C-alpha cells in the first residue's frame, strides 16, 4: 500500500515534469497569436484583421527614432513600403528617389493618411542611428517617413509577404528586388510598382484612391 502511494507520487512528479516540458515546447508564434487575441478583446470596436492583411504578422520593429513598434500599430494608414539598405550604392538611391517623388506628388489633403515606410534588409548594419542619419541625409524627416528594422528572420518573413527577394552577396552588399508596395488601411496589398525609375502615376493614383477613403 505504502509502496503504491509512493509510486503514484512519483508518477505525479513525472507527469508534472512532462507537462512542464510540453508547455515549454509550445512555439513562440502561439504566444504572439494569444497576444493579438487579447488586443482584440481590449478594443472590441475595432474591426477584426482581414485574412489578407499584413497585420496578421506579429513581428516587432524598431524605428529610426529607436521606438519599438508592431506592424499593426500602423493600421488605419495607407502604407507605401519599400525594402532597402542604407549602405547601398546602386539601386537603392534610385528607389529612395522614387519614394520621394511619389511623396511629392501626393495631394495635400490626403498626406496625413499616408505613411511611407522604408524597411531595412540589413538589420545588422542599419541601426536606428544609421537609419536616422540616412533619413536626414535624404531629407525624409517628416512624420510621414518611417524607417524600420527588425531581426533577420522577421525581415525575411516580411520580404516574403511583399514578394521581395534579397540575398547578401558580400558584407554590406545585397541583391534585392525593386518593388514599391501600397497597402490599404486594412493592411491589404493593393498595388505594386516594380523596377526603378519607372513611371509612378499608377502608384500615386492608387495611394490617393485608398487614402481618400479615409477622409
Amino acid at each position: 500500500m505504502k509502496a503504491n502511494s509512493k509510486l503514484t507520487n512519483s508518477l505525479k512528479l513525472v507527469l508534472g515534469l512532462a507537462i512542464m516540458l510540453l508547455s515549454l515546447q509550445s512555439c513562440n508564434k502561439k504566444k504572439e497569436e494569444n497576444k493579438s487575441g487579447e488586443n482584440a478583446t481590449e478594443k472590441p470596436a475595432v474591426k477584426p484583421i482581414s485574412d489578407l492583411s499584413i497585420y496578421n504578422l506579429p513581428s516587432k520593429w524598431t524605428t529610426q527614432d529607436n521606438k519599438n513598434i508592431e506592424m499593426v500599430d500602423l493600421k488605419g494608414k495607407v502604407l507605401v513600403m519599400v525594402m532597402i539598405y542604407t549602405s547601398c550604392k546602386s539601386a537603392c538611391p534610385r528607389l529612395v528617389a522614387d519614394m520621394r517623388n511619389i511623396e511629392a506628388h501626393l495631394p495635400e489633403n490626403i498626406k496625413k493618411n499616408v505613411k511611407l515606410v522604408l524597411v531595412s534588409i540589413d538589420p545588422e548594419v542599419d541601426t536606428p542611428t544609421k537609419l536616422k542619419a540616412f533619413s536626414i541625409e535624404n531629407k525624409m524627416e517628416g512624420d510621414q517617413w518611417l524607417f524600420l528594422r527588425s531581426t533577420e528572420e522577421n525581415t525575411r518573413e516580411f520580404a516574403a509577404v511583399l514578394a521581395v527577394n534579397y540575398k547578401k552577396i558580400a558584407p554590406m552588399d545585397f541583391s534585392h528586388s525593386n518593388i514599391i508596395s501600397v497597402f490599404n488601411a486594412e493592411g491589404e496589398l493593393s498595388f505594386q510598382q516594380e523596377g526603378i525609375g519607372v513611371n509612378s502615376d499608377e502608384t500615386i493614383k492608387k495611394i490617393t484612391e485608398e487614402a481618400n477613403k479615409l477622409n
Partner: protein
Amino acid sequence: MLKRKIGLSILLLLLATSLWAQETKMVIIERGAFVPLYGAANKKPVEVQAFYLDVYPVTNAQYLAFLKKHPENIRSRMKGIFADKSYLSHWASDFNYGKGNLSIAPVTNVSWFAAKKYCECQGERLPTMDEWEYVAMADEKRIDARTKESFNKYIMSWYEKPNTYANPVGETFKNYWGVYDMHGLVWEWTGDFNSIFLSGESRKDKDTDKNLFCGSASINATDLMNYAAFMRYAFRGSLKASYTTKNLGFRCAKDK
C-alpha cells in the same frame, strides 16, 4: 525506496524523450564548404556550419499531429496571407488526410509560412538553401557526388517521374549523412527560398542569370549536374511564400 523513485522517473523521462526523438529523427551534418551553382560570389566556396537535419521530409501524420496542437493552421482557418487556396487541398478534411493519402507520405500543399511555423513549433527551423544543397549533393558514399554521372541521371530521371509525392518517405536512397529523400520524392521549401533572382530585376545579378541559363544549353557531366541544380533554383525562384503545390513539401533543421 527513493532510489527506485528516481530510477522510475528517469526511466519515464527517457521514454518520453525517446518518443520525442522518434517524432523528429535528425542526424548531424558536419561542417564543410562547397561551391553552389547559384549564390556564391565569384564562385568562392560557401561555408556551411554543422547543423542537424531531419532524416525524412515531414509526413502527413506528423503534420496532422501539429495541426491538433496548433489548430489555427487547419485548412478552414488558414489565413489567405499565409497560404493560398490549395493549402492541404488533397486532404479529406481539416483533421483528416484521407484514405487516399499515406500517413507516412510527405505532407505537401503546404506554404512556406506553414512549413516555417511547423518547424518553429518543434523548436527548429527550415534549412537554408545552402544547407539543403550541401546535403543534397551527397550520394550513398560521397559528400559530393555532383560530378558522378549516374547520380545526376538518377536526379534527372526523377524530375520526369510523375506523382512521386504520394510515395512513403524513406524509400529512396540513404545518403552519406544518413538522410533520405533529398531527391526522388518531393521538392522542399528552404528558409531563404526568396533569395533567388531569375527575372534579372536586380542588375547585379544579371550575369549570374546568364550563367544559369547558358549552363543549361550544353550536356557534359558538369552541365548535367548544373542542369539538375538549375531546375531546383528555377523552381524556388518561381515560388511565393503563400504558394502551395502537391509536389512541394519540407523538412526541418536545427543549429548544432
